[in-house]
């Protein structure tokens, strides 16, 4: 269970997220809305532990994340604006590294299956830099299939994806939520998910 209380964040001269608080329970998805520059990405990076808030804290299973950094990161999967895919490595090589980083310990076959599921079959040995932007992003999205993380933090996961990929991603999120997982995401499209799981907060007017 994720608890966020009294978050303050400062970007240059501007105050974002003044005193934001919310809790996220298993099976719930939080859709973070807000205009550009309202602090959506900062919020997600704070929760992922990449950005230190000016004040307030993030609790995972009741304990602050800074005190249990390795355990918390074991349960976390973060996909930011950057795909996190190495251009000079082939798709399968990228996945082998991610497999180790995520501690997923999955077999070579299931990595191939993940690539195939995301429509990248045949591209296993191709260097990531030779792929299109959509394909490049989907290599990053393979992490969703590989990791058993309980908490997904996804920053604009749907952009640069074609319609089929958007549907596929929405399905993955749906399955994750049914398995008791939690997710936080930002997107400008409306979220194609069954509504009762989705709660929303809007930054900027808080």
């Amino acid at each position, binding site marked *: 269970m994720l608890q966020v209380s009294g978050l303050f964040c*400062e*970007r*240059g*001269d501007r*105050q974002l997220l003044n005193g934001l608080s919310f809790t996220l329970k298993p099976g719930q998805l939080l859709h973070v809305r807000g205009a550009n520059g309202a602090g959506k990405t900062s919020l997600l990076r704070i929760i992922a532990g990449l950005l*230190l808030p*000016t004040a307030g804290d993030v609790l995972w299973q009741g304990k602050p994340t800074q005190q249990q950094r390795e355990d918390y990161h074991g349960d976390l999967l973060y996909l930011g604006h950057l795909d996190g895919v190495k251009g000079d490595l082939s798709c399968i090589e990228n996945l082998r590294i991610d497999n180790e980083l995520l501690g997923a310990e999955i077999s070579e076959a299931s990595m191939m299956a993940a690539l195939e599921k995301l429509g990248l079959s045949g591209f296993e040995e191709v260097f990531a830099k030779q792929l299109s932007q959509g394909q490049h992003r989907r290599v990053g999205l393979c992490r969703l299939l590989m990791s058993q993380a309980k908490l997904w933090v996804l920053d604009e996961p749907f952009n640069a994806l074609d319609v089929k990929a958007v549907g596929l991603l929405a399905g993955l999120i749906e399955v994750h939520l049914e398995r008791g997982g939690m997710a936080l995401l930002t997107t400008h499209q409306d979220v194609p998910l069954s509504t009762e799981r989705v709660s929303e907060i809007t930054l900027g007017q808080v």
Partner: protein
Amino acid sequence: MNINWFKYASPASFYPLAGKMIPWFAVPAVILAVIGLIMGLFILPPDFKQGESYRIIFIHVPAAWMSMVIYLAMAFWAIIGMVWNSRLSSMMATALAPTGAIFCFLALWTGALWGKPTWGTYWVWDARLTTQLILLFMYFGYMALHAAIEDPRRAARASGLLAVVGAFNVPIIYFSVQWWNTLHQGASITPTKSEMAASMASVMLIMAIAAWLYSIAVTLKRVRCEILDRERHAAWVAELSTEAK
């Protein structure tokens, strides 16, 4: 009587306290400096060997001490800033740097000017002067890193870490330069430490204390600027700026 230290750890409550403390350090600094200068420049007799030029040590040595002490103080505050994640102490480290750099440069400058009459050359690869030069590079490195990062909080934390790594290396650098200097003994003339007469030692002490007080006063003044800069959104700064005008 337990002083609640953490009360003063918040910038809002430290700002007025620093304001009140500045005169307590500035005034005695000026008094001591004047006394030291008068005694050092006019009252003390000229040195039989070096003549008048030895009077430069009354500013050279305190400046050299202060440059070293301030760098270690910066590392001290940086460590506290990192351990307790307290913004105020990382601001203190940032506020100390310019004064330390100026003392470091002055120590080198006065060292060179003192070197010309006593050893015949402006620059001597003496262990202390060489370490002073490297310390000056470390100050510039600290300030350059702090200036290169826009976000003040990240800048303070990054340069704080550099100060800690630097402070850890200062003794290593000093001893390796010291050893290097004695190894190439033949190549350069090293100034032997002439034993100081009691009166000279007392003037040196006065000037050192004056330098200490001056540094504290200037740092407090600069940390107030840092606080205002960093807390410009805080409510207490807003209503402070109305009545201050």
